């Protein structure tokens, strides 16, 4: 009787722990944003050695700070529109604000006729500009940059 009593409580708590374990392993996948696990990041760094091509776009300031999007050659649309690659919920951003696209091995930023403009390192983007690694692009309240 005493044994079964304690045993059942132990099993009940084991269930809670099992559920929390699933929650933990699920933590990264559930967010919808792609946050690489430490193991993966290490691998990516190794591969990036000696290769200075940008591999990801990182949001450094704004509501989405910390978001990473890996670059695979396809252009990246930024704006408030739902079908943008980076959807901004920012009153200072336009529906289709800016586009990052690849030419050869370089990435170019162009403004898509936004109301408040796009800035690359304090310079207003009026024509497609090449984006060096690590230089900030400001869109409304959001700042993004390219990293290898």
């Amino acid at each position: 009787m005493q044994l079964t009593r304690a045993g059942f409580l132990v099993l009940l708590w084991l269930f809670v722990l099992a559920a929390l374990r699933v929650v933990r392993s699920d933590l990264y996948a559930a967010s919808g944003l792609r946050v690489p696990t430490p193991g993966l990041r290490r691998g990516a760094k190794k591969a990036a050695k000696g290769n200075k091509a940008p591999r990801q776009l990182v949001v450094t300031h704004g509501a989405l700070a910390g978001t990473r999007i890996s670059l695979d050659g396809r252009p990246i649309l930024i704006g408030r529109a739902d079908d943008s690659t980076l959807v901004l919920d920012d009153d200072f951003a336009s529906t289709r604000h800016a586009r990052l696209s690849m030419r050869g091995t370089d990435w170019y930023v162009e403004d898509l006729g936004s109301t408040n403009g796009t800035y690359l390192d304090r310079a207003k983007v009026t024509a497609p500009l090449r984006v060096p690694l690590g230089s900030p692009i400001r869109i409304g309240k959001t700042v993004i940059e390219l990293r290898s």
Partner: protein
Amino acid sequence: MGSPVPGAQGTPPAAAGGTPPAASSTSPGLKPPTRRGSELFLLAFAALLVTIALILVEANQEQELTMRIVWLGLAYLGLLSVAHFAVRRWAPYADPVILPCVALLNGLGLVMIHRIDLAMADVKLPKGVVWSPAAPKQVLWTAIALVLFCTALKVLSDHRTLARYGYTCGFLGLVALVLPGVLPSFIAPEINGAKIWLSFGAFSIQPGEFAKILLMVFFAAFLVSKRELFTTAGRRVLGMDLPRARDLGPLVAAWLVGVSIMVLQKDLGSSLLFFGIVLVLLYVATERAAWVVLGVVMFCVGAVAAWKMFGHVQIRVQNWLDPFADAANKGYQIVQSLFGLGTGGLFGAGLGGGRPDQIPEANTDFITAVIGEELGFVGLAAVLLIYTVFAMRGMRGALAVRDTFGKLLGGGLAFAVAFQIFIVVGGVTKLIPMTGITAPFLSYGGSSLLANYILVALLLRISDAARAPKTTPKPRPQQPAIADQFTVMVERPK
């Protein structure tokens, strides 16, 4: 120059495979795991726990231990796997933890209801009182609820369609909420002082349980379409932006509905639950603490007024402040519940070892007291933690989903379950006045079970939408072609 990325000009998406393997493992083309396997494992674990609980109850109550128990356990597992395959089929990316939590709570509820039946049989049969056990009925309700759950998952393939029926849901919900209060008593009888049932001959339903979900759909849809209205700043007082007086309409309406439930139906719990849900939805939609402060102030005013005016509220408060003043009569329920919890202590009396026949309304309002008696503080804490995990996963889905309506609805639904269990356990443990609403999934009651399984289906649908890989939107295929075009800057007309 390092290794150039191949096929840079107008690369079709398939060429992403040409990048080094380390990078491709984080590329968006990768399908996230569905985690249905974890769900099946947890479901089997839940069914095992429920079976063990049933065996312990039967053994400690000196019932015959037969193979029947194992068959019952397997039947429960069978029911759960039907739900599991429905999720696999219609919401493959849904959260893997929500359904097992519900399965365990529901199963534990079934076992406890059966255990209370055994206790009642011991008390009532010798006296020759005609009485029917509740557990078989609840099993039937569970089966019906699971069918409803699967249907809801199948029919509602996208939760955003609900937003279109916002006002319809609101109207139906309001009617369902108020109906028992205004109908004559032969169809809406007053049971235990609350007028919240509609009875049709043999069975009765509690429309308030469904109204809860319908009204949440309405409020979420309403707030999404009128969100700007509520964020308009009014006067600034004490570092808070108070809303303008004319924007208070919905809050006042919700408050009036809450008060009218309290007056017409004498149902304190539902009124508190309803008002709490409205407040949280407003807060989630606007991120402004002013609404919460205002709402709490209004609630306090309403509560004090109700306490001054109505006798049944005064009795509740009196029982809360000092249940032992009239322990044999008015304070009887809460006193027995406290004795039950006290008997349970830290580790409980063991399943089947308590005296649930001593606790009134043991299988509905006070089922958490029975669990506290038989499983002790440790067991009750585990049960509460399972509720917490459930609510947390619901909130998580709401955070991750992309559309505002889904965020609001998911957050509201998850909060509703957490708040409801707070009201129940708070009442049973004398933290707040006892209000008499059911513990979701645990308590005996068909309406509650059906409504809560629909709630689970909605939460799974929202978490599925949050985790599912984004299906390529329409303009996607044309984008590489656009990227190749030479872009010409055109001056905007000034």
